[in-house]
């Protein structure tokens, strides 16, 4: 067990070092660009996992938060006329807006389960896209622009790379904290048997909503970062119907239900997607390929890389050892001591 933890810790350190050094080694701004966008999606994927991975409620409405975060910053930039880098300090505002939206959104959507829930998230997404096109304060189809943020002399891309990296690391930490806590346990119990969990006293409605709000706030935040990086947002890019399906593909490819899986999926798919966009021969095939890859993953590798991979590793490690067979080991009936005191913490 100890060696396992050590290797895990070591692995994390290595990954972090690689991540930090990446733009220093590959100084080409195109490479850094891949990094920035990959990390932005990685953050969104882990944020998705915090809610959907833990509770089993598949949300296809994360674009609602992503776009709202972007638009919040855009509207702030336009109406408050703030100077360049000062605008960046508004980032927490986007998270707050995300959280605010998540509350009514969640209260409505979480009243239903399974695929009705999914459908509701899709419907809410369409509303938001519609609002972005039609509300007076969103500048309609023209979209909004952001001021160009530069912390010279550090190159533009590199700056955003480290910002995105900070977001990703922060989100992973939050996801990890949630996962090992009582809160996370309740979420996962809801995933397995919500009614039984309720029957045992878990306040399912509150717990689900809390996770949904956390997930929404983070996604809104990273949407704002994305907006500043690209300097613009339009209704169809901020509220992109392909966003959520891409996110789900990333998580399923990497491994649904695990933080590392969500990360891995994003870090594989996003650079791939970007590279494909640069190939003129593949132009216009975006949707077909996204749908196609998605189908391949779902039909042939539904559990994703991380669980399948770790199973394989476990097989390698335990080669030759006899299996622990669960059915043979129930304590002998006669040797049990008297019943333990059932009241918590009480003496016998």
């Amino acid at each position: 067990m100890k060696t396992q933890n050590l290797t895990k810790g070591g692995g994390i350190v290595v990954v972090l070092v690689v991540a930090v050094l990446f733009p220093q080694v590959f100084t080409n701004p195109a490479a850094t660009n891949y990094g920035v966008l990959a990390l932005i999606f990685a953050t969104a994927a882990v944020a998705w996992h915090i809610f959907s991975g833990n509770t089993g409620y598949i949300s296809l409405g994360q674009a609602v938060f992503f776009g709202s975060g972007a638009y919040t910053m855009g509207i702030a930039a336009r109406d408050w006329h703030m100077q360049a880098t000062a605008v960046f300090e508004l980032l927490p505002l986007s998270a707050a807006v995300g959280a605010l939206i998540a509350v009514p959104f969640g209260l409505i959507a979480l009243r239903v389960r399974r695929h009705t829930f999914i459908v509701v998230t899709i419907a809410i997404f369409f509303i938001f896209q519609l609002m972005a096109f039609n509300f007076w304060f969103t500048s309609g189809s023209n979209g909004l622009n952001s001021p160009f943020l530069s912390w010279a002399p550090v190159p533009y891309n590199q700056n955003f790379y480290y910002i995105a990296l900070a977001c990703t690391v922060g989100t992973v930490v939050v996801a990890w904290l949630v996962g090992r806590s009582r809160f996370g346990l309740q979420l996962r119990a809801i995933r397995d048997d919500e009614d039984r969990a309720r029957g045992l006293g878990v306040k399912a409605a509150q717990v689900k909503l809390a996770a949904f709000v956390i997930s929404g706030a983070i996604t809104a935040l990273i949407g704002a970062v994305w907006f500043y990086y690209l300097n613009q947002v339009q209704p169809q890019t901020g509220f992109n119907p392909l966003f959520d399906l891409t996110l789900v593909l990333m998580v399923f490819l990497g491994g649904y239900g695990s933080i590392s899986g969500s990360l891995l999926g994003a870090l594989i798919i996003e650079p791939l997607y970007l590279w494909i966009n640069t190939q003129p021969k593949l132009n216009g095939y975006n949707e077909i390929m996204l749908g196609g890859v998605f189908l391949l993953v779902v039909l042939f590798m539904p559990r994703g890389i991380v669980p399948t991979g770790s199973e394989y590793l476990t097989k390698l490690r335990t080669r030759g050892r006899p299996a622990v067979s669960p059915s043979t080991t129930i304590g002998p009936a006669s040797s049990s001591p008297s019943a333990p005191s059932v009241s918590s913490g009480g003496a016998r």
Partner: protein
Amino acid sequence: MSALLRTEGIKKAYGGVQALNGAAIAVEEGTVGGLIGPNGSGKTTLFNVITGYERPDTGEVWFGDRQITGFAPDKVFAAGIGRTFQLTRIFPRLTVIENMLIAAQAKDRPKNLLAWFSRDAWTHHRKHAMELLEFVGIERHADVLAGSLSYGQRKLLELAYVLVADPAVILLDEPAGGVNPTLINMIADRIRLLNAEQGKTFLLVEHNMEFVMGLCSTITVLESGATVVSGPPEIVRTDKRVLDAYLGADLDEDEDAGPEERKAEEESR
């Protein structure tokens, strides 16, 4: 001694089927009660009504001097009534110990936001949970995913985690169903132990007559949603109405059989 748990005149219909028709049961504190009856007599429905998974059309459920009719399952659980299910309901993707902790945390509201995320508060819950796992004999599997347990082990897990919250009354839905004789004995043993040493009250639904007759001090027989007879095992096992309920009222050829044959027939069910 007034009954710790009792129901009065429960009626419940599903469409055209009257599942419960005036079912009444009373369980004295500190006893092990049994609820038997042929298939379709309404035993599980009565359980569901008591524990809040169904609402009765009319009737009352009393727990001590509180009426708990129509309480939601979590309120019933919080009031001190635990319950297991016929088809075991555990959390398959959580480990065995985590299953226990879910039941444990319900009664322990965290004091502040930090407590939500910390694990320290769990240390004493964990200890208590392990003790219970030892009690039912599956402590070796504490870190195994509950979904990989065998059926018998799941039953033990369910029993253990129902005990975590220290309920006063425990309702067991077919605890001996589908498990091997050694395990049945062990389960009966545990129930006896908990009842004798801590005065826990039990109510079992069971088809296994040997199990019920050997363990319960009071047995209530249900038929077609109503109570037929209620009393100690010796009375119930020879009551003609019970035999009729199980065997059908018009088995004239068996009237010639003496009381021994009838007993043997009934016990072999």
